[in-house]
């Protein structure tokens, strides 16, 4: 239990050393909450006992944070930080090894004209292409993330989902993005959902687990908070908003509620969990708003790719354009960044 916890109470993930981090393969449900999953009734009582979220208040808070004005040096820092947090993603039926290699090249050197531009955090692909990504990224520090568990719907038997995970890990993924069973969650079968996350976590071995809540299907912030706690208790290393295949995907208020959840979880257990909004974050402005939110809601401990990721594709190019604008003083154009 709770291996890999640093003296200040946060779990260390070393982004430069994928697969060698100290994160345990065992479920690390913190002691304090060990008995809340002892039965369906107990787990329901616990999740429903979490403080409610007032929709209007949460949205107003997110909007207020969105009005922060980030300029000059702060903006430059924010853009580089955001780039380093991108999980550069391609999740299409038409994906090929060539597409993935191209994406990997961009992930290592997002702006070929500027060696000072940081690499992104990871490349995120379907499991069968994880090996292509891993080979293309070898030695770069950029992680290979694969979606699994019958992504995006999650509608398959548990055996198939676990096999999907094992396959992606075997292919070289060091990060697994799973989806929860939203049907079971919405039907109130919380323990089923929990046990599935636990099983997936075991199947991940040393790979890090991001748990996609698909908040666009959960619909309420109360449900997002409950699902967040469920995923954290089950051993997820990250909680992630969306598959990107359902609208609405990542929104600022949803991210706010999830950030509050990881903040409260760390306060209660000492275990730090990461957050990954994914889908719909397309502009530098969107990304900066998220960084502001991290800064003011959970603090600087989360301002790193170890603890925060953007699941995105087109976002990177906008970050690069803005970066060029700041560097050169004039506006750039789409031909000055690479097409994906």
């Amino acid at each position, binding site marked *: 239990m709770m291996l890999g916890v640093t003296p200040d109470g946060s779990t260390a993930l070393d982004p430069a050393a994928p697969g060698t981090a100290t994160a345990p393969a065992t479920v690390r449900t913190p002691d304090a909450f060990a008995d809340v999953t002892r039965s369906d009734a107990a787990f329901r009582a616990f999740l429903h006992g979490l403080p409610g*979220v007032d929709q209007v208040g949460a949205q107003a808070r997110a909007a207020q944070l969105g009005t922060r*004005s980030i300029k000059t040096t702060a*903006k430059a820092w924010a853009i580089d930080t955001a780039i380093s947090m991108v999980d550069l993603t391609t999740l299409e039926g038409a994906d090929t090894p060539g597409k993935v290699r191209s994406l990997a090249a961009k992930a290592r050197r997002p702006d070929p004209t500027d060696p000072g531009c940081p690499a992104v955090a990871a490349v995120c692909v379907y499991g069968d292409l994880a090996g292509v990504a891993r080979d293309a990224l070898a030695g770069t520090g950029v992680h290979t993330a694969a979606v699994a568990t019958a992504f995006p719907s999650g509608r398959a038997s548990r055996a198939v989902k676990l096999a999907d995970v094992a396959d992606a890990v075997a292919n070289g993924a060091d990060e697994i993005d799973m989806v929860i069973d939203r049907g079971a969650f919405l039907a109130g079968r919380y323990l089923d959902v929990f046990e599935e996350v636990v099983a997936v976590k075991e199947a991940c071995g040393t790979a890090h687990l991001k748990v996609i809540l698909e908040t666009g299907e959960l619909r309420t912030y109360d449900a997002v908070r409950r699902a967040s706690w469920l995923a954290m208790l089950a051993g997820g290393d990250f909680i992630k908003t969306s598959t990107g295949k359902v609208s609405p995907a990542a929104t600022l208020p949803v991210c706010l509620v999830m950030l509050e959840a990881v903040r409260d979880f760390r306060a209660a257990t000492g275990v730090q969990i990461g957050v990954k909004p994914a889908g719909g974050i397309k502009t530098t402005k969107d990304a900066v708003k998220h960084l502001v939110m991290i800064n003011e809601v959970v603090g600087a401990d989360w301002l790193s790719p170890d603890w925060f990721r953007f699941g995105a594709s087109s976002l990177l190019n906008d970050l690069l354009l803005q970066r060029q604008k700041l560097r050169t003083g004039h506006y750039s154009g789409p031909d000055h960044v690479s097409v994906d």
Partner: protein
Amino acid sequence: MTSMFEYAPAPESRSIVDVRSSYGLFVDGEFTAGQGTPLPTVNPATEEVLSEIAVASDADVDRAVRAARRAFTRVWGPMRPADRGKYLFRIARLLQERAREFAVLETLDNGKPITESRDVDVPLAAAHFFYHAGWADKLDHVGLGAAPRPLGVAGQVIPWNFPLMMLAWKVAPALAAGNTVVLKPAETTSLTALLFAEVCQQADLPPGVVNIVTGAGDTGRAVVEHPDVDKVAFTGSTEVGKQIARGVAGTSKKLSLELGGKAANIVFDDAPVDQAVEGIVRGIFFNQGHVCCAGSRLLVQESVHDEVIASLQRRVGTLRVGDPLDKNTDIGAINSAEQLARIQELVAIGEAEGAHRWQPAGDLPSKGWWFKPTVFTDVSTAHRIARDEVFGPVLSVLTFRTPDEAVAKANNSTYGLSAGIWSEKGSRILSIAHQLRAGVVWANTFNQFDPTSPFGGYKQSGYGREGGRLGLRAYLEESS
């Protein structure tokens, strides 16, 4: 841990505002000199003198009242109601068009953060004119029978905490109902009222319909005591409100008063905690706590006290105090040295009485008047900081165990302006809201304002309402 993410300064440019070196009174459509000795008006964030404002003598006020009477009798009273409405629509639009200018000027003169003047004060001022404009030709429907009559000349005195917004709350309903006005802004924050006078000129509002007389307490007294004023509307301290009520006794003047408060913000153990913490912060730190309806008494259920206070302290630690023109500032300057001294005095009393003072780390600017957001815990109902209005960024935290105790403590005040309730249980909210003796009850929110929504107090927080149909009725009488 100090943040890696240091926001660079993001100042709003003040070049949009042309502050003149001195301002006259606005009487009968013209800017004219005042007979009193002019007063400096100061940027509270820098102590820089922004301008000099005229001081209206009794004779100046008399001139303004006579101009208002003339305009009432000859122009504004007889005017087609729909045309009166059109003037108000024009004013609303002009306020929107010049919103940025008003926002910057308000922030310079008052010290409030530019985000607040930009996102709250100025839009709400415009909204008040827009809302009341539509009433001008529908007065038969306010509930005073057919063809209710305006009262005549309204004498209005407003405070320094929301200078333009309070002006709008006063002027818009008065004009919509067919009255003319003589308005005295606060002496530390007159500039946006004088810019508003320019807007009246741009709108071609007939001379004398709106008159702005600047000055201090003597000028205000001259306005409310003028024998030809038919209606007195005052927003400010309870002490001055009582003096005004005494002054109008025995006259036929109608009076509405919007005075002090010491609102209870009640947090139950089933509250949506994160939003409650936001509501507590918005309740007491909005506008530096210079808000009559501020949620200055936090009543938190004992079972969640520690959790709520910990969250609150963490949140208060993120508030950014400093340059009001910086778009990232959450808490601006205290409006005057005098007000700062009062806050300091009450905080010292709070400590001396044994309450525990907490303030976040960080430095304050070296020039200007500032006070850190402050939270007092271990406060009892007998402490002065639980009873007196501080009118600053100072929160007093008390606890309760049962709903009855919460209501009893909340109502244990001579004030009754506003209150807050935080709970996820609908029936409890309605029950508590019913029992609270306060004119505005915010449940699961706080410090929301809207021109359609009546605002005003119970008990010694004053009488009369502003906003909505009821607010308009304060400027009308039945025609019988």
